[in-house]
């Protein structure tokens, strides 16, 4: 295992120190492992928190700041944070207008946030929850855990952050969040596994010449394995299942080509070029985009595609100013 760390046990503690030292937008509660906006939002506005396992940086801590999240709870590596972290964050950021919890659909995240929401309700705080469940690699079904929450989370956090900043009510913010969640789809692939520091070796073996299609963001194997193909074919394997799942024509689309952490930017740009060609041929109009490492899986090489079927309000909220380590424009 080759990593810039002191010891597998200290990775998150140490990284939080560096985040606090480098990012002027945030302060860190090291005991609870919660990253807060250094300049809290004005009182009376809806607050937004998210959180999840660590190892997906810049998500979520890099999205704390003006126009996006009020707090992010950092779990252990790939492990949902605990209800007490979420309760601390919820209590701290609430200024009376209520708190939205953005939860990626993983059994652990769902249960921990659920317990936190129960405790917060008990403490008299109004909490709503929106689930992100956008990974088309996973078949949805009544009898399963449903789809994983992946890339749409990034777009959702930006858009609802702007909605809250505008002063929308908790019900309105939640409705926007739900609309984003309903209209986002993602699909990912990996060229390599990742190495969880505590495990010390790659989560799965992926021989030279092979790739995994339909991976999530936790180094888990994908839906199937096949020989490595060229970027054009890989782009098709990401675009096709997304377009098969939802109609993306006739609306402004926000597209994200996301790196899994170990893939250099030049390859992500190259993939974006292939994706946009396929989308153009399918009559999909991309109005806004992100290309880069936004929701990662430690050092995994690979990428994911997220498409959001947006509307005018979402585009307006997307364009609003944001000031976080991970996304910044307009100020």
């Amino acid at each position: 295992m080759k990593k810039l760390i002191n010891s597998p046990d200290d990775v998150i503690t140490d990284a939080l120190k560096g985040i606090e030292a480098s990012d002027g937008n945030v302060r860190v509660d090291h005991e609870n492992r919660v990253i807060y906006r250094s300049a809290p939002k004005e009182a009376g506005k809806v607050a937004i928190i998210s959180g999840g396992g660590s190892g997906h940086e810049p998500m979520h801590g890099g999205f704390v700041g003006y126009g996006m999240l009020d707090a992010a709870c950092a779990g252990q590596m790939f492990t949902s944070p605990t209800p007490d972290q979420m309760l601390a964050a919820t209590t701290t950021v609430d200024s009376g207008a209520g708190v939205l919890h953005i939860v990626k659909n993983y059994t652990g995240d769902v249960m921990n946030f659920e317990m936190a929401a129960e405790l917060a309700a008990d403490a008299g705080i109004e909490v709503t929850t929106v689930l992100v469940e956008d990974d088309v690699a996973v078949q949805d079904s009544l009898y399963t855990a449903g789809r994983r929450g992946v890339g749409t989370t990034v777009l959702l956090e930006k858009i609802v952050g702007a909605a809250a900043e505008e002063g929308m009510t908790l019900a309105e913010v939640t409705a926007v969040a739900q609309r984003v969640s309903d209209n986002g789809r993602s699909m990912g692939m990996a060229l390599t596994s990742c190495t969880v520091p505590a495990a010390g070796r790659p989560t799965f073996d992926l021989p030279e010449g092979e790739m995994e299609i339909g991976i999530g963001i936790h180094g888990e194997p994908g839906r199937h394995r096949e020989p490595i193909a060229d970027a054009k074919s890989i782009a098709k394997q990401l675009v096709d299942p997304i377009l098969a799942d939802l109609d993306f024509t006739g609306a402004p689309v926000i597209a994200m080509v996301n790196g899994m952490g170990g893939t250099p930017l030049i390859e992500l740009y190259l993939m974006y070029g292939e994706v946009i060609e396929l989308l153009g041929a399918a009559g999909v109009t991309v109005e806004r985009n992100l290309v880069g490492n936004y929701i990662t899986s430690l050092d995994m090489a690979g990428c994911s595609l997220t498409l959001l079927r947006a509307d005018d309000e979402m585009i307006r909220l997307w364009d609003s100013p944001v000031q976080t380590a991970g996304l910044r424009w307009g100020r």
Partner: protein
Amino acid sequence: MSADELTLDQLADWLRRFAELIAANKDYLTDLDSAIGDADHGANMARGTAAVVTHLDDATTVDALFKKAGMTLVGTVGGTSGPLYGTLFMKMGMSAGSVTELDGPAFARAFRAGLDGLIARGRTELNDKTMVDAMAPALDALDAVLAAGSGLPAAIAAAQAAAAAGRDATTPLVARKGRASYLGERSAGHMDPGATSATLLFDALTDPAA
């Protein structure tokens, strides 16, 4: 356990042995979770059970012991197993009440209450390829042997065997809950990590020194 009652000390020892077994099997549990999950079940359970051990001497009643264990697990494990094992013990504590020992039927009732809470929290069923697949048959066996009047030690032995059988039976299953469900058919052929740690919970009921 050789007696027909479980004292507070014996129940604390149970949790201590569970932590020891988890620590000894940490890498194994993580290996199992690497195959169909995210390679953290060993680290998660080891972190949580080690934290539980530091509080065992504080409790003067069974409900305090189990509730504290449950809350500690919820507060330190995270992920899927934190809320599930945490709920198991918190509900066990509530069912057990403010007593200093449990006889066989009371122990079985408390455990059943815990499992019901876990199942409600996890919205899971038998054969979803989860920890429930080890726990549920184990508790059924516990109940059955106790009902037959064979006493707690025999019931525990039967529960252990049933847990192990339930755990082994997860191998061919296609997961319908938890992270392994994302693998679809590829989840078949691997033993479930949570069912494996749950089996250790029953193994821990036998005092190796007894």
